């Protein structure tokens, strides 16, 4: 289990990571989500041992990692753009971390079984051993390449790979030594949307199949929620909220988190009630707290209770996206507009006076 307590990393006067606490139990994937420049990659590099800590402590199963060098931590790291070794083939890249493979066929080790153990904990990374285990390594490379869906590409030069293939090789390479903890630094950010959607599914499958403990850094919330069992939201060097995706969605810690995960507007409960939103019918919205609402929280409906002026209409594949001003609270919110949705084909024009229905499922009460 990884435990980080109060860790800080500074570049000169700038605190990139500022007093962060984290805990990742074995076999879990924690996703670190935040806008670019929030310090999430720096945090990941600090865990890997690539950035010196200014304060705090990182432990693995209770062992302080401060005096454990990068190459002895047994953590894997996958970069945004792969960073494959250009002078090695695909198989050569995947095999790089396998030099500590013990004698015998690794792939035959039953899951959970006592694999060939390291008697005495001697450091096995020696070239002689590497030579002796060539067959075992080749078998493991094949297994890894099959795992990431690149079977048979072992002899390719890495320069000939596409972006998606390169990332798969990087994943296989990072998984090769069965890292205690796999660190993924925006592994899909450099790929295009459709490829990313496919790879995210594969990544989730591979992490689950191998039971890898992982820290997954990304700025894309769809990716974060898809891959991870828990999400940590980070802003300006601090963790704003940490928890399972459902919890983050249902109860964002504060306005920043709410906006980051897609709630576009935050209302005072009192203002919503004044606007005709029947909050009382819904459990979980307490008086005095604030409520965050997604665009889908207000739907065009002639029977709705909320009166609004339509300021803009934008067609999209799933329906119309409206920009509206709710009449009762428009002035209170400084004239700010609110997002709403309507079914495709609805007859609504800019300047219309409309009625909206509130959808409680698309709203959440802020924790603070």
């Amino acid at each position, binding site marked *: 289990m990884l435990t980080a*307590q109060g860790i800080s*990393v*500074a570049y000169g006067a700038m605190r990139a990571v500022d007093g962060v*606490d*984290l*805990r990742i*139990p*074995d*076999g*879990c994937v924690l996703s670190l989500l935040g806008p670019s420049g929030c310090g999430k990659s720096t945090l990941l590099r600090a865990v*890997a041992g690539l950035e*010196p800590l200014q304060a705090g402590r990182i432990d693995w199963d209770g*062992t*302080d*990692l*401060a005096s*454990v*060098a*990068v*190459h*002895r931590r*047994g*953590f*894997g*790291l996958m970069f945004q753009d792969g*960073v494959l*070794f*250009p*002078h*090695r083939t695909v198989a050569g890249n995947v095999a*790089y*971390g396998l*030099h*500590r493979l013990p004698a015998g066929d690794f792939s035959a080790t039953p*899951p*959970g079984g006592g*694999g060939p153990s*390291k008697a005495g*904990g*001697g*450091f*096995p*990374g020696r070239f002689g051993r590497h030579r002796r285990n060539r067959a075992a390594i080749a078998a493991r490379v094949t297994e890894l390449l099959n795992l990431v869906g690149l079977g048979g590409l072992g002899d390719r030069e890495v*320069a000939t790979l596409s972006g998606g293939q390169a990332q798969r090789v990087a994943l296989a390479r*990072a998984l090769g*030594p*069965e*890292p*205690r903890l796999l*660190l993924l630094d925006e592994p899909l950010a450099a790929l295009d949307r459709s490829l990313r959607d496919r790879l995210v599914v594969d990544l989730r499958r591979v992490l689950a199949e*191998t*039971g*890898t*403990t992982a820290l997954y850094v990304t700025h894309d919330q769809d990716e974060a929620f898809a891959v991870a069992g*828990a999400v940590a939201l980070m802003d300006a060097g*601090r963790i704003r*909220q*940490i*928890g*399972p995706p459902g919890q983050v969605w249902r109860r964002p810690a504060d306005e920043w988190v709410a906006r980051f995960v897609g709630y576009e507007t935050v209302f005072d409960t009192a203002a919503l009630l004044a606007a005709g939103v029947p909050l009382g019918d819904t459990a979980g919205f307490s008086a005095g707290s604030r409520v965050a609402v997604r665009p889908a929280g207000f739907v065009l409906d002639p029977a709705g209770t909320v009166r609004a002026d339509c300021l803009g209409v934008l067609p999209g594949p799933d329906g119309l996206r409206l920009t509206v001003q709710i009449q009762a609270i428009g002035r209170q919110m400084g004239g700010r507009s609110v997002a709403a949705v309507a079914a495709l084909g609805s007859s609504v024009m800019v300047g219309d006076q409309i009625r909206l229905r509130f959808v409680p499922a698309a709203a959440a009460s802020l924790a603070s």
Partner: protein
Amino acid sequence: MSAPVILAPAPSIPDPADGWAPLTAEPRWRPALRRAGLVVAAGLPLLFFAVFFVYPVGSLLGRGLLDFPDATRAGSGAPGGIRGFAEGFWEVLQRARFRRILQFTVEQAAASAGLCLLLGVPGAHLLYRCRFRGRTALRALLTIPFVLPTVVVGLAFRTLFAADGALGSWGWDGSVWAILAAHVFLNYAVVLRIVGPAWARLDRRPAEAARTLGAGPTRTLFTVVVPALGPSLAGAFLMVFLFCATSFGVVLILGGGALSTLETEIYRQTTEQLDLRTAAVLSVLQILLVAAVLIIGARLRRRTEVALRLRSTREFRRPLRLSDLPAALVTAGAAVLVAGPLGVLLVRSLRTPAGWGFGNYQALGGIGEHNVLLVSGAAALENSLRTAAVAASMAVALAVLLAVSLARRPARTHPRSLLAGVRNGLDGLVMLPLGVSAVTLGFGFLLALDSGPLDLRASALLLPIAQALVATPLVIRMVLPVLRGADDRLRQAAAVLGAPPGRVWLSVDLPLMGKTLAGASALAYAVALGEFGATSFLARQNPTLPIVIGRLIERPGPANSGMALAAATILALVCGCVVAAVDMAADSHAGLSGSAGGW
């Protein structure tokens, strides 16, 4: 903020830490040992430089400037110490002859570098951005001159322009034109190798954007391409300038008595006038000149190395078009300029007083007409090959050790540390042998390394050490950009995969610089083989082939000059073959770093 993340792991998950050694804190001594290793890696070559470069050169300059009795004005009570230094400096600068020499040094170097750029840029376009049959062969041919010993080049051009030579009617014998022609011949490849790869890897999209915005090819070239190539162009200019400003063999042989640069004047003052004081002042002047050029160059380099990424970006190459005709014509002219003198050298070496044949080559088995040589030409050749091999291995070992410590960029967390400053200083220091007169170095060796534990005058290592000092900067300049341009995350990826620092170096750094290192070794070998300035002091008893050539052309007799031509041809062939072999080996799998290591 430490809300616990509790998620039940899947039931049958193996312990992922199975294959790893238990996590134990590293013993304290291990990082200390690692740091000590780095210090030794940087310290060994530094010690070498201190003992074999700073000490000899410093003691020669010291004796000349501070306390060596002024031989030309013995008894006049010339003052020593700092005052003597200042006075000596002033006095030398006052003399019109030395001002003329300084001016000539700078002007001919600037003119040579300018001509090289004018001729070389079209060549860089043609040979690195176009695709045509024979491109590789042409590139190899145009690279040969750079590795030729200056004595050979000087002799070839003298033969060409001599009154009875092929171009004797041009009247260039002993003129500045002959020197410029020889300098362009020697350094044409420098422009090709610096500008070519940069141009081939240039992002083409800005130029395409300019074309869509209505700029014609010429306007695009001068407003987009040339500015983007600016650092490479300036770098090439400075490099050629440096080589020409310190050129020795060419100026000595082609300049006759009339034209001299600082370097040849230092040689004359030291060996003919025995005026160490003037020689020392001129040496300091040369060091200042070279240091200024190096500082400007280092600034430029820092800008370009950032841009250089060793990602195997595909190089852009297109078939020839009609618009390439001017470039093709200029390059063809350059090829003639390169092939001509080499051809003349070869042909004339086959002409003996008794008619055509290999008589001159056979004569190399002896010691020449009137017994002008101490050893036979064959013995000198053998000595040359052996010495150069030792020197090249030394240079490569030194360069690799230095590159290890110089290539590590300071961590982002403390970018302006003391370490970074030391590193920049080191970077400049190891380049200095490029600029310090080889003559000064050679004579300094004779003066300084003659007593105590450093009495190496009789040692067979003295000569290779001097040659290694001259070759090391070139090797470093080739290897360092590759290591610095390499993505640092490659090393991090290796470390995260469990590779200790030693294995990171062996499996990442070494393969990345492998091909460049092979090329650099060949270049070091060629440079050592042809080294003339320092060698002329250190190899009097046991001369190398360039010294033999120099001695043969000083002496009269058609048999001697025939022998010189034969020896020069052999030297040219050996150098050409060594470099061509390595170049072809590197070009045959030139996907990755094929052209990344241009000097």
